[in-house]
């Protein structure tokens, strides 16, 4: 598996660290179903998913990777700082 880092270009999977699903953080700090979802519930889709990865052994950037869990196709890689998590 290779990912095209927007900063460094195409790199081997060994340079990247996988964090988990890229989720929108709920607004506000009051506890509610949105926060419960954010902390505990994951979809585990057979298909397109968005994950957070870090180019840990490269430029250090946090990335949002859109990929297909069925075909293993990587559809997009964007800087988390620009795309928003």
């Amino acid at each position, binding site marked *: 598996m290779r990912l095209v880092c927007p*900063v*460094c*270009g*195409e*790199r*081997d999977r*060994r*340079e990247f660290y996988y964090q988990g699903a890229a989720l929108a953080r709920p607004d506000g700090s009051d506890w509610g179903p949105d926060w419960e979802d954010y902390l505990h519930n994951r979809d585990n889709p057979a298909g397109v998913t968005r994950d957070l990865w870090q180019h*840990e*052994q*490269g*430029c*250090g*950037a946090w990335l949002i990777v859109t990929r297909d869990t069925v075909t293993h196709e990587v559809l997009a890689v964007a800087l988390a700082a620009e795309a928003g998590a």
Partner: protein
Amino acid sequence: MVELQAESPGEGRLPVTAGDLRLSEVVRERMTWLAPYKGQAAALSEAMQAAHGMGWPKAGRMTGRKGARAMWFGRDMALLIGPEPDPGLAAHAALVDQSDAWAVLALEGPGAPEVLARLCPLDLRDQVFKRGHVARTEVAHMAGAIARMGADNWRIMVFRSMAGTLIHEVETAMRRVAARRNSPREGADRAHHLP
């Protein structure tokens, strides 16, 4: 009174050779991390140009020349190598002294890319990784950097505390590449197919 003496990261362990390959320690230079403040990258580049004669390097590249160089070193980060940083740079960037933080080795000789290919997952072919290119990558499972200074002249950097491991790993790879190159059946005719 204890007499303290400064030692380089590779003190007493370098140089080593294998066939035509040579691994040595680069004479220590002043090294400073430059991390531009938000929106200050262009102003920093101008200040660098005025004070040190080189601008901000693009991702994966170096600017300047021997004695005064800027090496890209991560997202929004570069390493100023050689000069004492001009105080004016501090208006645009955070400056962090790195002079003693890194082991900086020079790998020279034909077959150097074959040695590096055993240690890191980069594409090091001539048409991809050229003179003046640099990459942050993993080197023998350590976070490091690899730069190409010339056709057969490479730099390898890891944190200073890992210097011994790096020297061991590179030397082992050098001996294996040299052995293959010297073996008439395995080495010589394979070697010229590689970059």
